[in-house]
Each structure stands twice: as C-alpha cells, then as structure tokens.
C-alpha cells in the first residue's frame, strides 16, 4: 500500500468513527476500540438490535498479560454511568464467551472476580443503563492460554467433592460503605477438558437480614475454580446483618451461607 492509499484509508476510518464527548466528560464512540475480529457477531448475538456504545466510564481492570490463565483477575466498575440495571462480562475469543452477568440492585455497580482465558482476548464489561443503551468498555489481556480446556485443580487432585459449595466470607467496614468478599468451593468445570462435563455455579444472590436484595449474579463456565468475588456496598445503604448468600450450580446443588461479620 502506498502512502496516498494509506492516508485516504486513515481519513475514511476517522470519518467512520463518530466521536462525541458527553456531559460528564465521557468519551463515547461507536467503533470497537479493541479492534476485535468477532465483535460485530458478538454484538448481534448478545444485544440484538439494542444500541451499544463504547464508553470510557466503563472501567475494566485486568493485567496486560495473564500470569496464570486459570486465574486472571478482573475488576469491573461502571458507577460513573449512574443507575445501571445490569452488567455483562465477556471474553471475545474464549471458547465460551460469556463470563458472568450481574444486576447491582442495592449494591455498588462494581465487582471483582477471576476468569479462565484460553488465549489472548479482549475482556469487556457491557452495562445497560435505564434508557436501554448498553455501554461497553474493556481491554486486551494477553494469555499463554489453555485456561478453559485444562481440568480444574480439584478434578486433578480428586478432592473437589469434599468441599463442594463451602463458603468462606468476610465483611469489611459493614457500618460504612463496606465490602463483602467471599469464596465458594466449586470446580467450575468448563466441559472442555476431555471427559469432564460442564459443572459450574449458575446463580448467586445476596440479600440482607431485612430481605433487601443487594446483588444478583449469573455465572458461567469461564469463572475461575473456587471463585472469589468482591462486592461493594453503597454509602448510606449499609446492609442489615447477617447477609444471606444463596445460589445454585447447573447440577442443582445449592449454595447457602450466612455472613455475620
């Protein structure tokens, strides 16, 4: 390609990208800033005709290079969007794309967790605001791979059944805008390792002693084994203790825990 052709193409691509700066100083664009080959397909598959924009108020934090493809830390925060109804997290190039989906309800619109990656891929959060628009943000994570097709450690050592569904949890600063962290013992098998069927937690929800729902979470195969989550509470919306965590896996095993401190 010669210089002239290149500069013409550059002009065209700039023209195609409509870029506007929102009231809160947010930068919103229509074209995928991560230049993922299959974004258009995924967009149709998950969002149909709904409007999807790329919005820098959607924050995704992850390492640039995954050190352990079975446990890649990801933090999502979409509070800058205001009221958010639900948030989806996907890894474009994973064999199983959808990682999880959550509705923040009375909790803050932020969540930390870990994911299995099969190769280098964009990791994105896409959040739906009340007007029905989906706001996407994310980053590329480089990964040596194999995270989705390797057996879980629990399968390899054979002891996963001894601890299945056990919960360890702790609340920090419950009186203020505190945080709940918990770990659920579960192999989270993807079904892609030979001879091991998919076996994963599908639902987790969090409510307080007064019956207020704080978070609904749907999880899928790519969430890491023995998953650890961090939820944050809103200022002025401290939960009444104890918290109740309940959930279920795809085999119907129930997860239930009360968290008092």
């Amino acid at each position, binding site marked *: 390609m010669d210089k002239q052709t290149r500069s013409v193409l550059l002009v065209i691509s700039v023209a195609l990208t409509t870029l506007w700066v929102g009231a809160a100083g947010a930068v919103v664009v229509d074209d995928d800033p991560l230049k993922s080959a299959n974004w258009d397909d995924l967009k149709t598959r998950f969002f149909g005709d709904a409007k999807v924009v790329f919005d820098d108020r959607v924050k995704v934090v992850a390492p640039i290079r995954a050190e352990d493809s079975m446990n890649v830390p990801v*933090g999502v925060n979409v509070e800058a969007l205001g009221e958010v109804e639900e948030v989806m997290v996907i890894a474009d190039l994973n064999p199983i794309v959808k990682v999880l989906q959550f509705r923040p309800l009375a909790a803050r619109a932020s969540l930390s967790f870990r994911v299995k990656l099969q190769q280098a891929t964009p990791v994105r959060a896409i959040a739906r605001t009340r007007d029905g628009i989906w706001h996407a943000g994310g980053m590329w994570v480089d990964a040596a791979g194999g995270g989705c097709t390797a057996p879980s450690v629990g399968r390899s050592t054979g002891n996963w059944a001894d601890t299945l569904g056990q919960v360890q949890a702790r609340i920090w600063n419950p009186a203020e805008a505190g945080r709940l962290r918990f770990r659920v013992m579960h192999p989270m098998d993807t079904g892609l390792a030979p001879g091991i069927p998919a076996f994963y937690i599908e639902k987790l929800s969090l409510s307080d002693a007064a019956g207020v729902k704080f978070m609904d979470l749907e999880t899928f195969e790519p969430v890491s084994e023995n998953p650890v989550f961090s939820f944050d509470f809103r200022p002025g919306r401290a939960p009444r203790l104890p918290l109740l965590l309940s959930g279920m896996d795809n085999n119907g095993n129930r997860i239930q825990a009360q968290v008092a401190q």
Partner: protein
Amino acid sequence: MNGLRALRWAVFLVAGLSFPIEAALDYMLKPRKVAPDTYVFVGLAEDFSRGNGGNIVNTGFIVTADGVVVIDTGSSRLYGEQMRRAIAAVTDKPIRQVLITHHHPDHFFGNQGFRDLPIAALSGSIGGMKEEGVGFADNLYRMAGDWMRETEPLAATQEARPGRSTIGGHDIELIELKGHTQADLVVLDHTSGVLFAGDLVFWQRAATTPHASIADWLGSLDRLQALKWKTIVPGHGEPHADTRGIEQTRRYLAWLDATLRKAAAEGRDMPDLLQMKLPQEFADIPLVREEFARSITHLYPGFEQRALAGGGKS
C-alpha cells in the same frame, strides 16, 4: 499502486525472505571478565521477547587449570550453543562441569548445547526441570519465537552436592539455599572472591516470584550477606562489588510481603492492587510494574485465604 511500485515491493519482499535467518538469530554473547579466570555473559534487564530471544539472564564461567566450570546455560538451545562457542574463544581448556543454579527456563534451556558434559543441579531443581520444563517451553516459544527452535527442556543429569572442593586451583563452594525457588544453588569461588548468586539476587531488574517463598528468600539473602566475597553476579542485572543487589532485593521483597499482607487484611482484591501506585524507591526499577502484577497472581491467594478464613460465615 502502480506497476513499478508493485515490482519494487516484490523485489523487497523476496530479498527479505531469502536473507539467511541464522544471521538474525545471534545473541552476540560477549564474555565480560569480572575477576581473574572469571567471565560473565550479562543479559538485558528485559522480559523474554522476539527481539532479545531470551538473552535476559546472566550466565558465566570459571577457567580453572583443570578445565572450565560453567554456571547456567541460558534460555534456548541456540543460546547454549553460542555460549559454548564464546567460551571456546576465550580458552582452549575443555569444559569439565556445568552447574545450574535453579529450575527456571532462562537458566537451563541452553543445556542442549552442553549435553555431552556432566550437568549438575540440586535435586529439588532437577525435579522442577522435569515437571515444569514442557510448560516453560510452551510459554517461551510463544514469547521468544524463532530463537527457541529445537529447544527442548533437558534436565540436569547429576545431583549437585553442597560443599567445598578444589578444582584446578580454584576453591569452589556449592551452597544450597532456597526462597526464589524450592532449591537455589549458589556458587562461591573463594579463590577469586566471585559469588554467583543465581536469582536470589536481582539488581536493577525487578525480582520474579513464580515459585517464591519470601520468608525463605529473605533468610537466604542474610546468608549471602554474611559470606565473604568481593564480586557478586546476580541472576539478573549488572555484576557489582558491594551488597546493593542483596539490599535492593531484600527491600523489594519485604515491601511486597507487607503490601500484600496489608491489602488482604483491608479486604482488597487483585484489581485494587493492580492499580496501586508503587513507592518511589522501586518505581524506576525495570519491569517492576509487570513483575508486581505477576507477583499478585503468585502470592496474593495465600494472603487472601488467610484473611477470608478470619471472617464470619456459617
């Protein structure tokens, strides 16, 4: 694109393809004399890449009257072979012994270049080479590309025994320590005063922790500091004549340990740590951001589980 331009491109591409690839894959290993009879191939303060081919590690050799002692063999078959040629350019004495400091791939993947010779490592390291070598190789082929051609993890063939022996007029002591990995071999030449510290010491290159026990590592650094030596060859970073490498490694590890412990006690998650500002003292050390991110993955789950176990669930 007009015809002439297309032709020019075609000529350029063909010329590029026919250029001998071998010529590009030269580590340019230049031995640096750090003491009488003692040489180091000083690696770059970088991570593995297609640009450097894994020339990121310090390897070395001691020329004794009874032959050459080699310490570590580098990151690929090619590195090992080129290192052997570079040694032969310095001395015509035969190599009598190869020593490997620990089981990380940048230290032993050149073993194929020395496969006709006795290659010794601590038994804990030999186990690690056998168990993890293939996984290391997959990752290095991905990161360093063509430089890795025909590299296969070849484990050490002899068990190194700690102790002191005289080899060709050099009083050489092998010391078994741990902390960077489960078995870290240190080579101290009492005759020249050179200490080959392996990856227990990093200098101006952030320490790596995939198999680290920080408590053991700090104990080993105290042992190294107490030994008598004149020149220290860190696993990564310039050789030097004082304790600055030991001290920098110790301060960084102590900070890392304290930071992760405090974060776990405060209920932080890994993404919070990834966004943390690093202290001024470490912010300018090459690769510290990357290594800190890796260390979070290696070490944080342990701290986190202890913190979660202290909570109330039922």
